[in-house]
């Protein structure tokens, strides 16, 4: 059978292709997706902590920043912004406060995930301090004022007059317990 060595090399090549596609799906597609979203701002994800740089405040523009707070699925907390909207000038640093209250009888851990709309504003909305950089532990019945300090970049596209920052609060108590027990 002269065909046999050919069959073997084809088998190896095609298996290699299958393995490569598997690796592509797990190790390339997710980072590629994140990169794509970061470049285009489509996912509405904001960057991490921002170190303020000295810029001139652009007093000629007024930007309305709206805040939305949502609980994910079964999250039982009270969670809302104290001010629902503020007016800022680009380049100006502004602090706002969200209120969170754990109404349950259990100690819980929450994690707020931010999202910015419109998509082309995501890269120009900087947070110098944010409760969302860490998770938020609240003991049973405890409440907290969660602080956010942000700067709207003066390079914000001229077409954008309103920026909406939305937080979704996830219950990560179980996940944290699992991680703690794994360490122990």
């Amino acid at each position, binding site marked *: 059978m002269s*065909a046999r060595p050919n069959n073997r090399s084809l088998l190896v090549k095609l298996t290699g292709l*299958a393995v490569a*596609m*598997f690796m592509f*799906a*797990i190790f390339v*597609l*997710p980072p590629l*997706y994140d990169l794509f979203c970061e470049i285009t701002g489509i996912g509405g994800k904001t960057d991490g902590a921002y170190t303020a740089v000295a810029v001139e405040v652009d007093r000629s523009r007024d930007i309305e920043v709206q805040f939305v707070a949502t609980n994910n699925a079964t999250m039982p907390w009270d969670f809302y912004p104290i001010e629902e909207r503020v007016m800022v000038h680009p380049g100006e640093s502004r602090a706002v406060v969200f209120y969170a209250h754990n109404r349950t009888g259990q100690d819980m851990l929450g994690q707020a995930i931010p999202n910015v709309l419109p998509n082309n504003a995501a890269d120009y909305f900087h947070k110098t301090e944010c409760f969302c950089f860490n998770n938020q532990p609240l003991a049973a019945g405890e409440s907290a004022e969660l602080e956010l300090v942000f700067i709207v970049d003066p390079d914000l596209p001229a077409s954008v007059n309103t920026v909406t920052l939305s937080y979704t609060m996830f219950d990560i108590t179980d996940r944290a317990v699992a991680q703690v027990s*794994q360490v122990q």
Partner: protein
Amino acid sequence: MAHGPATLADGWGKYISRWVFTTNHKDIGTLYLWFSFAMFIMGGAFAMIIRAELFQPGMQLIKPEFFNQMTTMHGLVMVFGAIMPAFVGLANWMIPMMIGAPDMALPRMNNLSFWILPFAFAILTATLFMEGGGPNFGWTFYAPLSTTYAPDTVNYFIFGVHIMGASSIMGSINIIATVMNMRAPGMTYMKMPMFVWTWVITAFLLVAVMPVLAGAVTMMLMDINFGTSFFDAAGGGDPVLFQHIFWFFGHPEVYIIILPAFGVVSHIIPTFSRKPLFGYSSMVYATAAIAFLSFVVWAHHMFTVGMPIAGELYFMYATMLIAVPTGVKVFNWITTMYRGSLTYETPMLFSIAFVILFTFGGFTGMMLSIAAADMQYHDTYFVVAHFHYVMVAGAVFSGTAAVYYWLPKWCGKMYDETMGKVQFWIAFIGFNITFMPQHFLGLAGMPRRYADYGLQFADWNMVSSIGAFMYGGAQILFLFNVIRTIGWGKPTNDPKVWEGAQGLEWTLPTPAPYHTFATPPKIK
């Protein structure tokens, strides 16, 4: 010295060993075909439960939780258990005989790729009897429904998908190796029969995208059990990523299902038109073009996730572009029939119905590809009607046609033509009664995957259910006709079986001997 296979006369032990350890392409083809028919009956039974519940508004027979399991299992079993193995079975039977090869290139892997399949579906089906029930998140298993909110049995589902993926990949590698290395001397690529061409292209699609599906379920597995956050927003992941990865697999998958069906029809229509296939090379290029385009249109399944307008426009136009090579194929089939000496045996009836109904399904696909309109159609019964027109009237009709067409060659006996025609008309009418009204329901706003519906949808749902029972009955008749043929059919020894048949498989004796083309034929 050629030796025959063990038969029942040699005792049960030998007979069972023959099937378990077989490396014969015809035996493995038969196993695939019977397995897929069993899965077709099971998936069909799930569909009957769904349609029985939807016969009237309100909850009558089953609980909504079980209804969700039925819709999910119906989709999974039909796609991965019935249609795909059916065409792999046809490939096993026909490709070596069509290209003049003695067997498949990798016969032992062929055995393995079949025999892991029953285990995959045993695992998947067993979840229905476990605590928490089977998969209930739809056959598309979108995260986080299939991760955070899934029943515990989801791990069995993931394992099952891994096994069936491995099976498909091995089957595809085998087909590619067979076609590339084992063609008879003189059989150039552009002389290969259409069914072989469509299968080679399908096999490349499978090798490319089944691992992506395996990757998707692996990421689910890690999110569920190992604390990663690929698809979990709470940990910085993104559920929309799941949809992208799923449809990067899922869209080529629909062509994996339909391309071999195109191949089958490209054999049957010339046979019963007594003319060669019109535009052979354009058929080959059209198939390749469809396969290529299938990789770059996936997001048309997810127009509603919130895509930028540029993305919607791109995916809309790219999707519409697929209509061009598909149109080439449809016009070639019609031109093949034009001025031919047509006769209407059962395989031809199914093939003509395929061309007509697949084109209907293609047109509703064009409607769905319009991003602006899809916002209204998304996840309604219009989508359900669309993909059943292409999956059932496409793939299943063509599979049925293939069985009727090649069954006399396989077993040397003729099926009952009258019974075949009766089955065709019940299936054709039943199919249209089932799915035509679902277009109206979808346009009127009835969402898919719900166990109940508003009163305004009652009449058409009842009509649809009646059609579904008719269509289900036609399959029982099909099973009966096949068993009757194998057991008591009228024997035939005509190598050609059909007057207009062309191709190497028809130069072999009827029934096809256990070993064929031990010495390769010469192709002029």
